[in-house]
């Protein structure tokens, strides 16, 4: 117990040290020529689950991730962006560095970035990151728990708002899905913004995983089969995104398709699709529906057999741009998978307060 307390104390002190550094360097005296900003984001929620098979209710208050978001200019062409968070789970405090990147806007709308970034495989991961205040629903698509390489460390070439269709590109190489630098992953992502508030995009991601049992931070796809298959995998991920916001009718559709190849079992595929449709009333009140499904084949050796469906309705109340409340009722169906050969159904009611400290 003493060891646990000491470990948590060290984590808190490490975070406080970073926070203190941030406050010190926010003084205009030290950075008179730069534009330095610190913002905070966080969420709190209350969950109520009802499991049909056991006819039991589970209630819980939860503290969501509390994030610190730091941006700063370093001269005319360079800028820094950092995002780190504290999360509280299972009695432990977890500190995570999500983004730390330096950007060089070398000409026009073209930039080069280096560091740890959110992999821009789809609209959600490129726009929302960890700030739930921006999420259209209370949680991320199911694909984020299995398919999506959320973070990557590497180098990225980015262009945006090019031509009449506001064409944008992100071409990136970095450590593999399991963090192996000897086998870099590659990503090509492209999008257009034909009208205000609309973005249509697609991406292709490839990572050769030499050892499937290497577990990084869980956000790098789940890698649930790591304990059962330690060999190599060719991992390919294709995404299509359609987003329509800034209008009365909001739509976000994220389609993911994964294809992984192993010498043992050949090629296996998985699919996921998240659909959100909301209707804005006076910019403040947004009722919405959501449908999220994910299916992975039995011979897929990264995540194994997965078969999940989630659908629900919700309502978002925006008090102002810095704070909103979401209420969401959803039904989960987990069909038999490699870890559990029975079907599991449950209902969940979530009340989530999300905020930004600006």
């Amino acid at each position, binding site marked *: 117990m003493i060891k646990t307390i000491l470990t948590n104390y060290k984590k808190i002190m490490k975070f406080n040290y970073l926070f203190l550094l941030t406050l010190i360097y926010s003084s205009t005296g030290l950075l008179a020529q730069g534009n330095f900003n610190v913002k905070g984001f966080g969420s709190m929620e209350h969950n109520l689950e009802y499991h049909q098979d056991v006819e039991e209710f589970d209630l819980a208050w939860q503290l969501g991730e509390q994030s610190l978001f730091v941006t700063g200019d370093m001269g005319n062409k360079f800028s820094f962006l950092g995002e780190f968070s504290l999360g509280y789970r299972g009695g432990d405090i977890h500190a995570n560095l999500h983004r730390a990147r330096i950007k060089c806007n070398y000409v026009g709308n073209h930039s080069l970035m280096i560091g740890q970034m959110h992999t821009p495989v789809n609209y959600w991961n490129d726009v929302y990151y960890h700030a739930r205040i921006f999420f259209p629903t209370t949680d991320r698509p199911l694909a984020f728990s299995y398919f999506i390489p959320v973070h990557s460390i590497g180098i990225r070439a980015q262009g945006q708002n*090019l031509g009449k269709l506001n064409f944008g590109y992100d071409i990136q190489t970095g450590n593999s899905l399991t963090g192996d630098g000897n086998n870099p992953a590659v990503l090509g992502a492209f999008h257009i913004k034909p009208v205000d508030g609309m973005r249509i995009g697609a991406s292709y991601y490839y990572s050769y995983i030499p050892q499937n049992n290497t577990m990084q931070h869980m956000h790098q796809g789940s890698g649930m089969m790591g304990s059962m298959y330690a060999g190599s995998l060719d991992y390919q991920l294709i995404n299509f995104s359609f987003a329509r916001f800034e209008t009365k009718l909001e739509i976000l559709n994220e389609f993911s398709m994964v294809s992984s190849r192993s010498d043992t079992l050949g090629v296996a595929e998985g699919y996921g699709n998240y659909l959100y449709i909301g209707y804005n009333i006076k910019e403040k009140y947004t009722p919405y529906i959501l449908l999220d499904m994910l299916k992975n084949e039995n011979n897929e050796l990264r995540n194994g057999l997965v078969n999940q469906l989630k659908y629900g309705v919700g309502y978002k109340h925006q008090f102002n741009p810095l704070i909103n409340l979401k209420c969401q009722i959803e039904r989960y169906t987990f069909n038999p998978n490699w870890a559990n050969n029975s079907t599991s159904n449950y209902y969940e009611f979530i009340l989530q307060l999300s905020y930004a400290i600006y």
Partner: protein
Amino acid sequence: MQYIKSNISVFVTVAFLFLMIGNCSAQNYSSRIRICGNSIDEKSYTKSDIKSIFKGEKSRWKNGNSVILVLRFNEDEKSQHLAKAIYNKSTQGVKKFWLGLVFSGRSNAPLFADSNEEALLMLAKHKGSIGVFVDCKEEIPTEFKVSIIKSENEKSIK
């Protein structure tokens, strides 16, 4: 007939004024909106160009300066007018737009000022800055003035 001949200059002047007002309302947002820039590419832009610039779609001018947006913005009526004219949103909608865009890392935040005077000082201080003012009574240096031109057959900034 004599009445017309003696007052023709008056008629021509009045007609010219009507034409000017008509042209101004076609070219400009409204007489309340003024666009100003310090060391930017052009002295005139179309309305669609202005909207694109103020939505953060342009990172750098051709002269190499970073695009820095200056907005005189709070919760008053002038800000509501600015939000509607430039962004076609409410003031809350503009704040939400910039909060999301800056968080995504795809654009730098504008410089926000509480008054036109403060905004002009910011403009003068930062090369590459472009600002929008509502009901600006302060004297604007000639080199900072930017005009709005018709969109048809005019070049785009992209």
